[in-house]
């Protein structure tokens, strides 16, 4: 029921939301582009990746409608994929970054 009322509500005026997300994404692109030219040491990569993660989350939640997805399995599929991606990147880097010869 809760899902239904949310979808009914967002269907009444989703345009404001879509244009708001679009403007936020463009703003974040501009911010990440400008910040890249500042000297922040190791934080340059951190800031760039955090902004990219925020942008990707915005696209998934509001443009791909994960926010109001009626099907709960969709969230399970996304979280499972991200878990295995983290496993792939995390374990590989944990191995290579702790080898004395590399």
């Amino acid at each position, binding site marked *: 029921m809760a899902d239904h009322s949310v979808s009914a509500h967002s269907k009444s005026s989703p*345009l404001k939301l879509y244009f708001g997300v679009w403007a936020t994404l463009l703003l974040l692109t501009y911010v990440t582009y400008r910040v890249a*030219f500042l000297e922040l040491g190791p934080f*340059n990569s951190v800031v*760039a990746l955090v902004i*990219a993660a925020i*942008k990707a989350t915005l696209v998934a939640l509001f*443009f*791909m409608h994960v926010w109001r997805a009626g*099907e709960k399995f969709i969230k399970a*599929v996304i979280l499972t994929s991200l878990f295995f991606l983290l496993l792939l990147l995390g374990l590989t880097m944990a191995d290579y970054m702790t080898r004395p010869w590399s």
Partner: protein
Amino acid sequence: MGLHHEEEQHPELLHHFAEPEQQRNAASLGMWVFLGTEIMFFGGMFCAYLLYRHWYFGDFGAASKSIDATLGAANTAVLICSSLTVVLAVWAAQTARRALLLAMLCVTMLFGLAFLGIKGYEYYQKFEEHHVPGPSFSFENVPVPGHPGEYANPRHAQIYFSLYFLMTGIHALHMIVGLGIFSWLLLMAWGGRFTPAYHTPVEIGGLYWHFVDIIWIFLFPLLYLIDRHP
């Protein structure tokens, strides 16, 4: 009689689904499972990138500085705008606005072509500068950012460019497939196949397009924005 009436209302409802809602959810779930496999497919390339960036940190910085960050940012903006037009196309299909649906599908494809055009120009620049991996590759006397007097190892820089062309190339291939999907959606929309009750292909095609946008959202900082500062 009730069942017969239901079928007449939803000619697109397949007999093994109880209701249109269930059919739509099954289609989205299937698309998301495919996108899950795509995450792992691109994940392998991102993993290779991370590892070599860790090993050849300064060389990657020097190589990344040679590509045009402004064109990369422009392409990011183009894709973000195309994602907006996709979501507007889905909304137009939901609310039975046929003209808007056709317009948004066309504009999305124009954005897609603009992206590929800019990408093609960047590739052309790389060919001109001999930065394409292969026998004519040349990356001599390029300073490493943050280390005065040090020069990038051309062999290591070549790995950066191999990953650059691999990742942006596979991404561009996804864009071309997306253009194909949207041409097909445009044909179906032109024929009036989509109604508020049935527009699953627009939604599913939209999911694919947004996913390709998300991949670029990560490629942009990783390939263009590392070690930009003086």
